[in-house]
């Protein structure tokens, strides 16, 4: 610090007319000399945090790189199950929301309140669109048994590769066969026969959009599903494809997974991926889901932070309702989870919830509704008391740090997706 800074000590709070300068600034913490110093420190701290975020994602990128480096064919085989057009649309959505966020920072610096609010709302909308497309992708993976762990059909090996646990199962089944039970290989053979009877999808083109998981079926194809007596998924739009993997959702009976394979994409099959390599495909989906899942979590956090800043930009008077809204929405969420557990749509139609599940469901529904009602009562008592508060935005040319910092976070989320998209969807 130079002498000049010491000479300008009147900057310090309390040494001058409070209205003359921003030492009066209510946002200035006592341990900072000036708002500029506070702003620079906040930004430095945010960048250090973003650095740790990069290091955290670095672990996943490292897993990806090592795995892809050692098994390039596995990635070439597995990535055709991802829809690159959905990935590309999501990239554009995130870039657009980055633009609106950067523009929101500009608006806050200039004190343009309406555009600040609208641009942050648009940014949050971009996050919703991103997560919506992502959920479509995840749902398709789930229905095609291309999820993680046991919910991935490649987990037990692909065509001939048998993990030890499966061999042990077969031994146990052989023993049990003496008592009349059906053996695992026999069941697998049966299911394979059955799968042949159902017309499979015609894999026509070499491009990834022709891969079975890529597209939901057209509405008209639902009629075919009615003729399929095996389909246990009432609302699965993909079930109409007659795809073997879609005959039965994986959570019904994992043991029968041997009969639920997707046909491999033809051009990859010709490339000669050996069977040991094929068995490693499920790890690709592990990498995919952990990378996109952690990124998706960051999208949710970023949206929440932007929503918080958006509320602050509306002023305390206008956002009094938002505070009780948080416990109210948590309560409603718990109640909805309870209702889902109680009725379990799509799992096993017609089967009632077990007594244990029903008890949990009842507790969740009651607790959730109690929390929601209490929150509404709180709002009724509390919101009117806030009527006298200011309705002005907290942000303007002299204070826009929160807008800037959540913007930085959102841009980092965008940057990480910029790398995830070509690495996962555009493998050549």
């Amino acid at each position, binding site marked *: 610090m130079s002498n*000049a*800074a010491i000479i300008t000590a009147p*900057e310090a709070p309390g040494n*001058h007319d409070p209205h*003359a*300068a*921003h030492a009066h600034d209510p946002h200035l913490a006592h341990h900072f*000399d000036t*708002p*500029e*110093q506070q*702003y*620079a420190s906040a930004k*430095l701290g945010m*960048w250090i945090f*973003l*650095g*740790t975020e*990069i*290091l955290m*994602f*670095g672990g996943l990128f*490292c897993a990806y*790189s*090592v795995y892809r*480096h*050692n098994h390039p064919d596995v990635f070439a085989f597995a990535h055709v199950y991802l829809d*690159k057009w959905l990935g*590309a649309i999501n*990239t*554009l959505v995130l870039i657009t929301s*980055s*633009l609106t966020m*950067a523009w929101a*920072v*500009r608006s806050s*610096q*200039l*004190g343009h309140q309406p555009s600040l609010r609208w641009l942050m709302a648009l940014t949050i909308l971009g996050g919703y669109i991103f997560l919506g497309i992502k959920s479509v992708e995840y749902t398709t993976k789930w229905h095609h048994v291309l999820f993680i762990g046991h919910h991935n059909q490649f987990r037990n*090996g692909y065509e*001939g590769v*048998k*993990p*030890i646990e499966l061999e042990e199962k077969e031994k146990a089944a052989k023993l049990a066969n003496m008592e009349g039970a059906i053996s695992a290989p026999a069941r697998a053979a049966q299911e394979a026969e059955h799968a042949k009877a159902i017309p499979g999808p015609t894999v026509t083109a070499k491009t990834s959009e022709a891969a079975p998981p890529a597209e939901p079926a057209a509405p008209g194809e639902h009629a075919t599903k009615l003729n399929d007596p095996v389909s246990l998924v009432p609302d699965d739009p993909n079930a109409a494809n007659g795809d073997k993997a879609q005959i039965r959702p994986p959570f019904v009976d994992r043991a029968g997974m041997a009969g639920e394979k997707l046909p491999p994409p033809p051009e990859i099959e010709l490339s000669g991926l050996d069977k040991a390599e094929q068995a*490693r495909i499920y790890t690709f989906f592990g990498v995919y889901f952990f990378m996109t899942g952690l990124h998706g979590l960051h999208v949710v956090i970023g949206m929440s932070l932007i929503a918080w800043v958006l509320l602050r930009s509306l002023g305390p008077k206008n956002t009094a309702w938002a505070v009780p809204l948080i416990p109210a929405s948590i309560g409603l969420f718990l109640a909805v989870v309870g209702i889902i557990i109680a009725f379990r749509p799509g799992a096993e139609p017609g089967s009632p919830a077990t007594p244990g599940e029903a008890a949990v469901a009842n507790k969740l529904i009651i607790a959730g509704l109690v929390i929601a009602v209490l929150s509404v009562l709180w709002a009724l008592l509390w919101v009117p008391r806030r009527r006298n508060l200011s309705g002005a935005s907290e942000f303007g*040319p*002299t204070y826009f740090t929160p807008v*800037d910092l959540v*913007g930085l976070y959102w*841009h*980092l989320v*965008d*940057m990480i997706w*910029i790398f995830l*998209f*070509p*690495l996962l969807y*555009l*493998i*050549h």
Partner: protein
Amino acid sequence: MSQAVHDSPNIHKYAAPSDTPMDLSVSHGSGSAHVHVTSPLLLLSVFAVLVTLTVITVAVTLVDMGQFNIWVALAVAVLKAGLVAFYFMHLRWDSPFNGIILIISLFFVALFIGISILDSKEYQHNYNRPGTTIVP
């Protein structure tokens, strides 16, 4: 930043809101906070370049360049991320220290990945997935 701002620190530090790009920087001798307002034209230009690069990176996958596909895709991604960091994240006008933190993070990630790949190459050739037997 003007000399006038230097000489009269007690005068309000910030220019009045206006619609033109401006440099709101101030200096106090003890570090300065450069507050730069990005112009809409610049924001839209960066956005247009980002969209173009996204289209390019998808289009490139339709061309088979062998092992160069991944490097082209990565180069485009680095370029896009750089644009986002430089303009949307204001690094161009920020204290250089913020940019250094970003570069240091990326350096350590690169070190991590590079050494891990080198290490995995040492044993990968005699590695088989545990618990698998290959049925002919």
